[in-house]
Structures are given as structure tokens and as C-alpha cells.
């Protein structure tokens, strides 16, 4: 049930508007499918680099990509091509197929159950 809005305190009236984060998350919502998979690959790559005591720079040289591109890959923001995924697998000696599916858990179920939890809260 919607609550009644209260009078804004004076100290907050001069706050700087900044709504950009919601727009960024709209982008994430629209692209969440491939972003999740890219993220899973990023994790797997970081794990493999740790295990093999390899740096990102060394991997970048193996893949013949720039350091900047490698940073984007390990951040999970890259819309990776099949070719790049294959090159990562060869360079690191890992398989990335299974990793891409680890996000396919019922995220919506988790969100739904959390909604029920919140609506039961009494403002405590």
C-alpha cells in the first residue's frame, strides 16, 4: 500500500539530482543475458590466471589483444565472439561452455521470494 509522502527536510532540498544509475541498470536489464555469460567467463579466466600464475598482460600477448581489451574481458563487459572464447580456451587450457551456464539459476525466483520477505517487514 502506498504511503503518504512526508515534508522534505530543509537540508535535503539542495541535494544534487543524480538519477543516472537507474539508466545504467536499464542497460544491464536489457542486456543481462549476455552480460551474465560474459561475467562467468571473466571469473573463469581470472581463476585460470591465478592457477597458472599468469598475468593479464601475458594472456593479452598470447591472444594478441591490447591490455585495454583484456581488462574489458576480465570485467565481464565484453560481448565476446565465439572466436575469442575459443582463443581463451586454447590459451588457458580450460573449457568455458559449462561456465556460461552457471548463471542459469532461478534468479527471478530469488527476487520473488525476496519480495515476499520485504512486504512482510514492519519498518523495523
Amino acid at each position, binding site marked *: *500500500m*502506498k*504511503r*503518504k*509522502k*512526508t*515534508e*522534505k*527536510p*530543509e*537540508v*535535503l532540498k*539542495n*541535494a*544534487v*539530482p*543524480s*538519477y543516472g*544509475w*537507474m539508466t545504467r*541498470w536499464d542497460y*544491464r536489464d536489457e542486456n543481462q543475458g549476455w552480460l551474465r555469460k560474459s*561475467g*562467468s567467463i*571473466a*571469473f573463469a579466466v*581470472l*581463476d585460470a590466471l591465478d592457477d597458472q600464475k599468469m598475468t593479464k598482460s601475458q594472456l593479452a600477448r598470447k591472444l594478441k589483444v591490447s591490455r585495454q581489451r583484456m581488462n574489458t574481458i*576480465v*570485467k*565481464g563487459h565484453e560481448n565476446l565472439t565465439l572466436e575469442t572464447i575459443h582463443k581463451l580456451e586454447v590459451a588457458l587450457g580450460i573449457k568455458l561452455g559449462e561456465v556460461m551456464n*552457471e*548463471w542459469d*539459476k532461478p*534468479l527471478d525466483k*530469488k*527476487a520473488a521470494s*525476496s*519480495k515476499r*520477505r*520485504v*512486504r512482510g*517487514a514492519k*519498518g*523495523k
Partner: protein
Amino acid sequence: MKNIVIFEKIKDQLYSASFDPDGEDELDRAFSFWRNREQLRAFFDTHQVDLKHFAFSKKARHAALEVMIDSKNISRQLIEMSKEWRIADLFKPLDNREDSFYDFQKVKMKGTQYKSMLRLYAVHLSDYFVVSGSAIKLTNKMDRPHLRAELHKLELVSHYLRSDGRHTNFVYMDI
């Protein structure tokens, strides 16, 4: 001495402090960190012992994935509850012994997952909330350095709001 700037993040309801005029505000900082795979892995590697006590056998990578899922749910909740002016339902007093809100009170929002590690910290004022910081909390007490820093930021924002945004001789920690 650092200046605090308050940003309005959800119109008329949720605000966020910034301790760095050129940097991000604390709400943006929270979500940036909670979605940065490298930083999350580094955090959990640093706090391996605490992670082990918090969730036995959980690896850094899986903990990081949980953080990212939980972070998404938190953002959804903030947006959904704001539509009904119910942001207050998401926060609780920081002190577990308190059971109601009052002005300049320190409050927290937990993540939505069972035994969530995520926290948003804020100061409550007349049904408005000013986020002062966030944390990944793996211990019961707020005794780890990164959690003590959050307590200090809460104090800074509470003091700032009490003084109507006027700066006093309060000594700022170099955050």
C-alpha cells in the same frame, strides 16, 4: 577537510552522500564495487578467513557471484519500493535493540539473499534516507577496518544532517 555533497538518487526519497567531490557518491560506489568481478575476487581473497567462517567451503568466485545476484535484487527493490513511497520498509535500525525510526538515526539495508553479506548504510531523517556507505559484511561485529570505516561515515553524515549541511570543526577521517 573533505566536503560532503548529498545527491538525490531516487526522486524525493533516497539520497546518497559523496565524500569526494570528483568521485562517485556512496550508492554508485556500492553498486560499482558489487558488480566488479576483479575487485570482488580480491576482496574475498583478502578476507578468506572471514569468508570461511561465514560460509564454510564457499569459494571466492561463488561468493562474488552471490554478491552480484544480490546486488541486482537490491537495486530492483529500491526502485520498486520507491514507486509506493516504501523505501522505509527496506531499512532497519543499525542497532538491533531499536525497533522504530527516529531522526538522524543510523540504519542499514540488508541484501535479499538468505544470510546476505551485503549492507547499505544510511541515516534516516523524516522518512528520507541518506546512504553513507556500503559493505560486504562477513562478521557479526563491525570490528573489521572496512566496517569501522562505515561506522565513521555514518557518523559524518549524521553530523552533517544535524548541522543542516553546515560544516563544523568535526575532524574528518581520510577515507
